[in-house]
């Protein structure tokens, strides 16, 4: 299942904290798409996903971060 988390307009550390909470709700095979306009969040959220062992893709133009729960 695909989920979307919109954290546009939010700055450190809320995009990371909200993503961390949302990831707890997901199951294997789910995809979480995070929309952010705060570029530094792409690095913290990527590190969070990698630490969890999940795949991460970033669409640079709009800062869409896609995490696939494995």
């Amino acid at each position, binding site marked *: 299942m695909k989920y979307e988390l919109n954290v546009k307009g939010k700055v*450190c*550390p809320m995009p990371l904290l909200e993503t961390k909470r949302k990831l707890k709700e997901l199951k294997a095979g789910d995809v979480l798409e995070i929309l952010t*306009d705060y570029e530094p969040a792409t690095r*913290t959220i990527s590190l*969070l996903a990698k630490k969890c062992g999940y795949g991460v893709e970033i669409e640079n133009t709009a800062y869409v971060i896609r995490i696939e729960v494995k």
Partner: protein
Amino acid sequence: MKRTLPNLLLDDETGELLASEARFVLLPAGFFITSLEQIGKIVGQAAPALLFRIGCGIGEEYVNMIKRAADEYGETLDTDLLLLEAYENALYQSGFGMIRLKDLDVEKPRIILEVANSPTKDEKGCDLFRGIIAGIATEVLGECACNEVEHGETCVFEVVK
């Protein structure tokens, strides 16, 4: 260029400026630099140590600000995420320049940071900024030292125990 701190709020009753529920004071960078210069003039040779200590206090408060936000939200952050948030996000969004964590080993510990366009880049020894970096690491990892290993348009700092 882009708009930043999009949720910066000014409370028109109290005059408080808030971003992500933390209070901010916006000052032109010149005010900041002038303060550093005045400290140097007043305390002379003691200035580097004093600026370093002030920086440590600021760095510790940055970490505590993130911890408080996480606590209020009911989450905790691992050491590496906390350091990344503090260095690359909190300092960046405060206007301290482009900061990149080039190496992070929380076990040793050893941290290498690259800082471009810091408002204190012309300050000899970058004592205040060195203190901020050390303060962040100290608050997360216990007492740490910070050395500026390269000085120029881009400065490189190393944090060790």
